[in-house]
C-alpha cells in the first residue's frame, strides 16, 4: 500500500494561486470554501518588506487531531495516508474544525448555490446560451472510494457538513496527481508515495531541507515544505473574501 504525501517548494512558489483555482474546478467546492489556500504574507516594513507565500492544503497528519475527536468516525485515516471525510455520516458538530491547528476545514454554513460564479438565469446570458446550463459536476466525485467504499470525494456539498482537501482522492485512486500538483505552473507541488524511495516526492524530500507546519505539536503532517516558513510577525497581505470574514 503506498503512503501518499506532498512536498511543496516555497522557494519556487510565486503565489499565483492557480492551485486554488484548480482545486475549485476539480472538486466543485462551494463559494468561499478553499480546500487549498495560499497565504500571501509580508514581513517587516517598506522598503524592507519581504513577501512570502504558503500554500496550505490539508496536512493529512499521521497523528491527526481531527480524526481523534470525530464523534462518529466521519473523519478517518486511510491506509494510504489520506485523511478523509465521509460526507454522508458527518453530523456537523465542527469538532474537527476546532481541533485542527491548521484551519483546513470548511463548514458549509449554507447550502452551496449551484453555478455560483455566474448567474445563468440572467437575461443577457440566457440569450447567448439559449437557456442551457453547462454541467458542472465531475462524475468521478460521485463514486464511492475504492478502499473503503464510502463517499469521500468532493461531491455532495450540502449545508451542515464539514469539508476539506481530499488530496483529490478520485484522481489519486486512478493513479493521477491531485489537481493542485498537476496545475502548478512552476512545479512547486510534488505529490507521490513517500514510502517508495524512487518516487518524485521522496527524491525531492531527500534532496532538500524541509520543514513541517507546527511540527512541535507532533501531528506528523504528510505535507512537507521546502524553504523557510513565514517568520514571526508575518502579516496576511489581504484577507480572503470568504464566509468567515462576513462577506459571502
Amino acid at each position, binding site marked *: 500500500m503506498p503512503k501518499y504525501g506532498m512536498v511543496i517548494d516555497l522557494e519556487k512558489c510565486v503565489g499565483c494561486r492557480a492551485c486554488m483555482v484548480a482545486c475549485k474546478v476539480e472538486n466543485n467546492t462551494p463559494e468561499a470554501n478553499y480546500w487549498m489556500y495560499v497565504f500571501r504574507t509580508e514581513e517587516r516594513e517598506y522598503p524592507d518588506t519581504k513577501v512570502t507565500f504558503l500554500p496550505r492544503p490539508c496536512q493529512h497528519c499521521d497523528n491527526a*487531531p481531527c480524526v481523534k475527536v470525530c*464523534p462518529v468516525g466521519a473523519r478517518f485515516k486511510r491506509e494510504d495516508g489520506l485523511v478523509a471525510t465521509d460526507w454522508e455520516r458527518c*453530523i456537523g*458538530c465542527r469538532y474537527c474544525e476546532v*481541533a485542527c*491547528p491548521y*484551519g483546513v476545514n470548511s463548514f458549509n*454554513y449554507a447550502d452551496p448555490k449551484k453555478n455560483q460564479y455566474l448567474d445563468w438565469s440572467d437575461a443577457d446570458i440566457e440569450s447567448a446560451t439559449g437557456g442551457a446550463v453547462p454541467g458542472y459536476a465531475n462524475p468521478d466525485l460521485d463514486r464511492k472510494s475504492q478502499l473503503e467504499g464510502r463517499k469521500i470525494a468532493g461531491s455532495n456539498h450540502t*449545508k451542515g457538513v464539514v469539508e476539506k482537501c481530499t488530496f483529490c482522492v478520485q484522481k489519486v485512486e486512478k493513479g493521477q496527481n491531485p489537481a493542485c500538483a498537476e496545475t502548478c505552473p512552476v512545479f512547486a507541488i510534488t505529490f507521490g508515495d513517500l514510502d517508495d524511495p524512487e518516487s518524485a516526492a521522496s527524491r525531492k524530500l531527500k534532496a532538500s531541507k524541509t520543514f513541517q507546519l507546527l511540527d512541535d505539536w507532533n501531528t506528523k503532517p504528510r505535507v512537507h515544505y521546502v524553504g523557510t516558513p513565514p517568520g514571526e510577525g508575518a502579516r496576511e497581505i489581504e484577507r480572503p473574501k470568504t464566509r468567515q470574514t462576513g462577506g459571502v
Partner: protein
Amino acid sequence: METLRPVDTSPETPETRLQQRVFAPMLHTERAFYVWIGFLLAVIALGAVAYYFQARDGLFVTGMRDRIMWGLYIALFVVFIGASMAGTFVSAILRIAKAEWRGPIVRGAEIMTVAALVTAAFFVFLDMGRPDRALNIVMFGRWESPLVWDVYGLTTYLAGSMVYLYLAMIPDLAIVRDEVGDKLSGPRAFLVRKFAVAWVFERSQMAQLGAALAVMTIIMIPVAVMMHTVTSWIFGMTLREPWNNPMFGIFFVVGAVYSGIGLIVILMAVMRKVYRLEEFITDRHFLNLGYMLAAAAGVMVFFNVSDFVTLGYKLSADATFNLDQMVSGELAPVFWIYIWAGLLLPIAVIVIPRTRTIPGIVAAAVAANIGMFLERYFIVVGGLRVPLNPYEPANYAPSWVEWSLMAAGISLFLLMVTLMLKFLPNMAMWEIHEQTEHAGAPIEQAKALEAGA
C-alpha cells in the same frame, strides 16, 4: 405495625404548616402561574421561529464562521452543564455531611439538575449542522472522541440524578397520597399512588431507603465531578492555546460548583417568595450557602491568578495574544466584568457584615451567575480567536437567531423547573420531619442555633 409516620395533625404544628405549604401549589393554581407559563411558552415560540430560519438556511444565520466555529450555543451548553452541578452534587455533599439544614433546599436543587441537563443537551442539538443525523452518535459513536465521553457522561448523570431525585421523593409522595390523594385529579392520584410504591413509613422501609440513598449519594458525587471534567476535556483535548491546559478539568468543576451554588440561592429566594416559605427557608440557609458561594469564588480567584501568573510570566506568543485580547483587547469588557462583578463583588458582599443579608446574598448569587456566563463565553470564543496560522484574528458576535434561541433555552429550563416544582412535592417533608423529630420545637431549635451562630 410500628410506624415512624408523624401523626400529630393538630393544626398549628410546624409539620402541618409545612405540609400545607407543600400541598398548596399541588392543589391550587393561581392566575400568576398561567401568566408565567404563557410568558415562557411565548419565548419558546420565538425560539422556534428562529430555529425555523436556522433549519432552513443553515447555521449561516448565526454569527459563527469557519474561524470561530463555536459560539453562544456551546458557551450555553457549558453554562447549563455547570448549572446541573448545583443540584445533585450540592445535595449529595449536604447529605454526606449530614447538614441538618438541608431539608428545605435539596428537592429544588435536584429538580434543577434534571432540568439543566436536558437544557444542555438542547443547546448541543442546536449547534449541530445536521441534527437529522443525531442518531449517528448512537450508531457510529467512537469512544475515542471527547464529545462521546460527554454523551456517556450526560446520560449517566441524568439517569443517576433522576433516580436520586425519585428515591428521596418516595416518602413525600406517600405523604401526598395519604393526606391529599383524594383531592388530586384521577390520573395524578393514580401516578402518585404508583410512584409512592406502597410506602407506609415502616422501619424496614426507612432503613432500605436510607441505604439506597447513601449508596446513590456516594455514586453521584464522582459522577458529577466526572461530568464537569469531561465537559472541560472537550476543550482540553485540542491544541488551542488557552484550552491546552491540564488544570482545565478541576477549573470547570470549581466553576460549576460556584455558579451552581449561586443558582440554588436564586431558586431558594424565588421559592421562598412564591410559595411563602419564610418559616422554613430562613436566614440560616442563605448564610450557609452564601459562605459556600464566597469560598468557591475564592477558589476561582486562586485558579485565575495561578493561570495568569504562570502564563503571563513566560509570555509565549500564543499566551501573549490570549492575555492581550482578554486584558485590553476584544474580550476585555467581558473579562473585566467577570473578574470584578463575577468574582470579587460576591466575595465582598458576603464578607462585609452590612451587606450579608438575604437580598445581598441573592444579589451576589445573580452576579456570580452572570460572571460565570461571561467566563464560559470568553473561554469558548477567546480560545478559538487565538490564530494558529498567519492570518488576522477573526471576530464573533452572536446573531439575533442565537440570542432568541438562548432566551428560548433559558425559558425551557425555567418551564421544566416550574412544572416540576408545581407537580412534585417541592420540599423534602420527610427529611425536615426527621431532622426535627428529636427536638420538640424544630423552629425554635433552629432559631436558637442561629442565634448561637
